[in-house]
């Protein structure tokens, strides 16, 4: 299968009293049996040695035509049967492959010794010695061990379930050794003319025995003919089935890769865990979905993510397999797969770019909602942090170094980006300005999001200002860099004390603004 057999394609032979009908370049000749052997061997060796060359097929058909022409010339006068002498004469006139191509005999003599040192053994599937896909036989040839050993190991691995996917992968990825040159590389023998011819004559013998066997088994009666016909049908069905199965397996593999990638992405996000607190995937998906620009939903986000990681994952897997087994790059199935994955990842990049631009637009404008709270007239003010520790349950992101602490509670999103600064009051009154800030694609949207931020401070008559450590907004709303700024305006000659408890260090005060600040521990 696949291997080009000139004997198969051009010499359909039947025995007629020791002469054989053969077809050379479209012409029919009667050939003696010994002449047939010599001629077919010669044509085969020509084809094999030309296979390596550019335009080899064309050169071969020219030569074949010339052989036919020479026979025609020699036959016209004398007998109608091609004898071995004629074949010899033709070979002498046209020349053997060595004479034709290896004219630089010196090179040809030296080359084999050199090339034996740099044989590169390559992994191929052995299509001529296969049980399923020829993978085991190919591996056996690669490691120079008995195929049976590999088969037993493979059977154990496949049956235990581990090796099943791996076998399929190898089957798809490893090319079949189709040409004699590839078969030699598979066996780790140097690819030179002599070996190619040995390989050819070996194959020729196989073909001959096949031909003879076939002739012996030529169906004699109706029953045998029916059996032969059924066998043919069965073979056809098997062949078709194996093709179908292969494609099913390929699709299965692609699906498997797809699922694996999804799971990996999922793990990446769900794997974030702080202490005993797990991330809740549905919540994060909801928030992500809400935060995306219009026209994108959470699914499209995952889809784009998948498309982006598909190519690298595929690339890593295929490169590693190729490197382990020294595989050639050309494989028709792989080529198709490469193209498909290339196109998919290109689509991914385009979509990611569009998404990025759209997302950037969503952060274009900033708007604020400010609110003033007046303070009682006292000499000393105290800032107290109100912790939300008790609210925490479920999803949380915490980064001690950056002081980030975000969490979800009661379908609200809590964030601790609260800045506090203390300033001199323009007059003798003391007051606090609560500024809620958000970004949005236009100022209207930004304003709406800012006003949705919840942050309530409490002030009592003794001058105690209670500042919550977090602000919150419903998690049905998108992230648009919401944050809160607290500006405390105090008349000169008043003092402010910040009480810091160990549970919560937020909000902190920008100390550059005022000198008269004390910390109470």
């Amino acid at each position, binding site marked *: 299968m696949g291997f080009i057999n000139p004997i198969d394609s051009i010499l359909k032979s039947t025995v007629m009293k020791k002469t054989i009908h053969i077809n050379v370049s*479209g012409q029919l000749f009667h050939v003696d049996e010994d002449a047939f052997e010599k001629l077919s061997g010669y044509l085969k060796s020509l084809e094999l040695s*030309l296979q390596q060359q550019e335009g080899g097929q064309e050169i071969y058909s020219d030569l074949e035509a010339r052989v036919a*022409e020479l026979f025609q010339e020699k036959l016209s006068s004398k007998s109608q049967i091609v004898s071995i002498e004629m074949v010899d004469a033709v070979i002498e006139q046209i020349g053997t492959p060595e*004479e034709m191509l290896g004219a*630089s005999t010196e090179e040809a003599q030296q080359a084999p010794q050199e090339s034996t040192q740099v044989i590169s053994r390559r992994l191929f599937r052995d299509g001529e010695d296969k049980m399923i896909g020829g993978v085991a036989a190919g591996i056996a040839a690669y490691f120079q061990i008995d195929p049976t050993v590999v088969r037993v190991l493979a059977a154990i691995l496949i049956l235990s379930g581990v090796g099943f996917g791996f076998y399929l992968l190898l089957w798809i990825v490893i090319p079949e050794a189709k040409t004699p040159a590839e078969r030699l590389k598979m066996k780790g023998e140097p690819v030179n003319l002599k070996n190619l011819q040995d390989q050819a004559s070996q194959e020729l013998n196989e073909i001959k025995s096949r031909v003879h066997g076939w002739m012996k088994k030529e169906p004699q009666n109706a029953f045998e003919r029916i059996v032969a016909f059924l066998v043919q049908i069965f073979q056809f069905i098997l062949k078709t089935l194996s093709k179908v199965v292969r494609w099913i397996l390929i699709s299965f593999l692609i699906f498997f890769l797809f699922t694996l990638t999804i799971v990996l992405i999922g793990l990446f996000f769900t794997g974030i865990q702080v202490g005993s607190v797990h991330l809740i995937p549905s919540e994060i998906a909801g928030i992500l979905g809400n935060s995306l620009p219009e026209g994108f939903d959470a699914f499209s986000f995952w889809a784009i993510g998948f498309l982006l990681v598909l190519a690298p994952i595929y690339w890593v897997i295929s490169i590693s397999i190729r490197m382990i087994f020294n595989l050639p790059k050309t494989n028709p199935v792989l080529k198709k797969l490469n193209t498909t994955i290339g196109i998919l990842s290109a689509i991914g990049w385009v979509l990611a770019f569009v998404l990025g631009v759209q997302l950037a637009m969503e952060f274009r404008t900033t708007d604020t909602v400010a609110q003033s709270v007046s303070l009682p007239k006292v000499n000393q003010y105290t800032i107290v942090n109100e912790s939300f520790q008790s609210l925490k349950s479920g999803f949380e992101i915490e980064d001690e170094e950056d002081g980030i602490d975000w969490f979800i509670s009661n379908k609200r999103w809590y964030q601790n980006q609260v800045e506090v600064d203390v300033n001199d009051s323009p007059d003798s009154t003391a007051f606090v300005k609560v500024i809620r800030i958000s970004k949005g694609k236009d100022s209207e949207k930004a304003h709406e999001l800012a006003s949705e931020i919840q942050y309530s401070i409490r002030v009592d008559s003794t001058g105690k200002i209670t500042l919550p450590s977090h602000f919150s907004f419903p998690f049905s709303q998108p992230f648009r860099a919401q944050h809160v700024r607290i500006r405390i305006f105090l008349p000169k000659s008043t003092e402010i004390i910040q009480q810091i408890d160990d549970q919560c260090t937020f909000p902190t005060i920008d100390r550059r603004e005022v000198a008269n600040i004390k910390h109470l521990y």
Partner: protein
Amino acid sequence: MNEENFRSQMKKGILELCVLKIVQVQECYASNISERLKKADLLVVEGTLYPLLTRMKNAGWIQYRWEESKSGPPRKYYQITEEGISILQKLEKEWDSLTQSIQSLNQPS
């Protein structure tokens, strides 16, 4: 290194030039060309010629047309192309200068 091999290498080196010269004069088919080359003792086996013709055809130096033959398969008749003519001129010039160079070695320096 043997003398026989060296001679065949030299002949092989100028085979393209010779083929171009033959097809420049008149359109020929492969065995015409090989006959003439053999007569001139430039070719040992016919087979050498065929890969050469295909290479030259692929390079655009020569082209062919099919012609039916009374005895045997249709034949390819080769003719030189414009490009082949200019290549031939260059090759001939090179050949002349080579013979001159070798001649010049006869004189003491």
